[in-house]
């Protein structure tokens, strides 16, 4: 057993912390939420300069060839600072599936541009009334000429308005399993027939609705094999869940640190409120919830990094961490009292993200069911 990060990972963690503390303090995040901007462009350029977009992209495609565990470390810091922007959609929902299933030509065309910070990506998966599972995918692709014609509606596409290319998941056929007959297409955002509508969500995280009306794409836009796209999606979602967990653990840690500081400073009844048992018990519970969860997170991340099967660990992590983050922010709010219920305070930024994080990529119930299946039930 080794619970430590490597020296390089610690360096990455520290430099990311310093960088975001400087470049992306919470006041900026709050300001940014109010603007209509896609992402803070200068911050994005600097992040690209640090090599964050290329962290997990192999050197031959212009990246630095880091591991999934490295990425997890980075995203925990991102979550601590609730750093906005399309890093998650570009790297996790874009680069990872291209890396896993793309043709050599696709990799060459896409990955180096991502690594340079010059290409934003996203995945269009969920549809109305779906949780993003295979059976609910109705959007269809039919052969047309030398390519395909895509039709259908997609919801909650992160950065769908801004991404340069979209991995669009649609149905090309039907088979025994719901996942049979699903194909992933690389679609250039801006080709005719795409209607984009921004969604007003709790966390202004630029999700959008994408309506495809007879969007024509060439044959070579298929990612991987036609009809066999679902495993690519599933694999991406598993990794995405783990990365989202990393962000949530980072967020929960930030809430704990803010609460600890406040509990030491705030005086009522002539004593710091942190001297009251009720508050001490909350803080102890928060700490325990976070540290217990962090083990699940890093075990899942490590297994993925090592190329091992991690379905069980990823499901356990996502089931627990979304709810743990929610518990931690509620306890944090309790400690802050009235001041935490204001727009000017930072607590609500985390409170919102805890709910959103729990709901995205399937909340606790969905992932507990996956655990149950893996228990042989």
């Amino acid at each position, binding site marked *: 057993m080794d619970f430590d990060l490597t020296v390089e990972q610690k360096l990455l963690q520290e430099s990311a912390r310093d960088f975001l503390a400087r470049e992306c303090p919470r006041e900026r995040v709050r300001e940014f939420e109010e603007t209509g901007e896609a992402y803070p462009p200068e911050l994005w350029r600097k992040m690209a300069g640090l090599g964050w977009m290329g962290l997990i992209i192999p050197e031959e495609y212009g990246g630095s060839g880091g591991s999934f565990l490295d990425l997890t470390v980075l995203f925990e810091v991102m979550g601590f600072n609730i750093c906005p922007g399309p890093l998650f959609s570009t790297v996790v929902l874009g680069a990872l599936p291209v890396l896993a299933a793309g043709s050599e030509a696709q990799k060459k065309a896409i990955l180096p541009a991502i690594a340079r910070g010059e290409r934003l990506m996203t995945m269009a998966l*969920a549809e*109305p*009334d*779906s*949780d*993003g*599972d295979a*059976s*609910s995918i109705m959007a269809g692709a039919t052969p047309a000429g030398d390519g395909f014609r895509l039709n259908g509606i997609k*919801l*909650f596409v992160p950065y769908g308005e801004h991404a340069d290319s979209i991995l669009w998941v649609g149905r090309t056929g039907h088979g025994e399993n719901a996942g049979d007959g699903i194909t992933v297409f690389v679609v250039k955002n801006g080709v005719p027939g795409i209607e984009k*509508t921004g*969604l*007003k*969500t*709790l*966390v202004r995280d630029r*999700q959008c*609705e994408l309506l495809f009306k007879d969007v024509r794409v060439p044959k070579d836009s298929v990612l991987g094999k036609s009809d066999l796209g679902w495993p690519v999606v599933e694999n991406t979602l598993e990794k995405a869940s783990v990365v989202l967990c990393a962000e949530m653990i980072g967020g929960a840690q930030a809430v704990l640190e803010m609460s600890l500081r406040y509990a030491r400073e705030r*005086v*009522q*009844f*002539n004593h710091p409120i942190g001297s*009251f048992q*009720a*508050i001490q018990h909350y803080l102890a519970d928060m700490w325990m919830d976070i540290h217990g969860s962090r083990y699940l997170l890093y075990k899942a991340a490590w297994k993925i990094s090592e190329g091992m099967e991690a379905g069980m660990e990823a499901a356990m992590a996502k089931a627990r961490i979304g709810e743990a983050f*929610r518990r931690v922010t*509620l306890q944090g*709010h*309790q400690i802050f*009292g*009235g001041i*935490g*219920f*204001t*727009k*000017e*305070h930072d*607590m*609500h930024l985390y*409170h*919102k993200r805890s*709910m*959103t994080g*729990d*709901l*995205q990529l399937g*909340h*606790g*119930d969905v992932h507990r069911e996956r655990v149950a299946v893996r228990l042989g039930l």
Partner: protein
Amino acid sequence: MRFDFTDEEKAFREEVEDFARTELPPDWDEKALYWPAGYGTFPGIEASFKDMYDELLRKLGRKGWLSLGWPKECGGMNSMTRHVILDDVMSYHRAPGGDVSTAIAAPTLALIASDEMKKEWLPRIAAGELRFWLGYSEPNAGSDLASIKTRADDDGDAFVLNGQKIWSSGAHIADYGWVLAKTDMNAPRYRGETLMLVDNRTPGITIRPIINICGIHSFNEVFFDDVRVPKKNVVGQINQGFYCVMLALQYERLFVGMGAFRRVLEELVRYVKETKRQGMTLGKDPLIRNKLAAMAIEIETLYGFYWRTAWMMDRGQAPEPEASALKLFGTELSRRLAGTAMEILGPCGQLERGSKWAPLRGLINLGYMDSISGAIGAGTSEVQRGIIATRGLGMPRK
């Protein structure tokens, strides 16, 4: 034992139902997004609702419904049970059934104010002509209310107020503050404060908005700069203000928006019956059924605390620790209900009011934010637990 209402009470409920259906604006259901036991989306707290609220209050006043719980000799019906029936119905419609003035201040005045004071204030309050805000908290005095710094100095026939209040909900749309201030700086804790009614129009008062996390202007900071308050506006005895506030808090704890719990549950039940996910009607999913059933059980439990508190008050008993349990259980249930509702809505729960795909008009989304407030305002959950353990269960204090 008997767990039912009298025929008169049932008829009264019907009458209030009719009133709500006819008197609330036709588009009220669309507009009203109040979350049960939340203090940040209170119906009528937004300035844009002020005219509608004022008018509704006067209509309730004409019916004699703002004074249901007050003693007969003060013009009331001496029935807290009727008061909570009315509040149950009005909050079901997410509409105000009274005001700080009618439900918190007036019953307290009825108990402790001088006859002149009762005569001066109660009839106008009963008519729905006056709205109050609560001036207790200060930046450094929340749970520890005895450490307030706002001072009221004796100056002949008046007190002169200086200091600052915070979290003053609705001060921007009210007429008078129900303000606690220090009148004896040297007295021991809890013995040097006085409660007084302060006219918002008095020179020297500045009211500044604070936007809450729902994005709504409900809170204010209120500054007093040599504000003269006539001594006749003192509530109860000078230097006995803390005791008066304790009485008033007992009435405040009844404010849980009981009917709104029932309403949200009904709306969720309808939603899951009408919504399909992965080809299955949500209402058929055992997990979802279980969650909603659990909420129904908790809401019914809350009704137990609700009716019992009113019943005790009607018998002249102090509902302690029952009122604290009602407040604690209700506000924590408010959070659980919001979380459960979000889980049921799934990713669509993220969508805010005004979005095409937002289920239930974005009500749950906003409620999820507001549900934070209940367990903090009007005495935090920790304070309520302390009251239950010490005053209710006789545990020793340090």
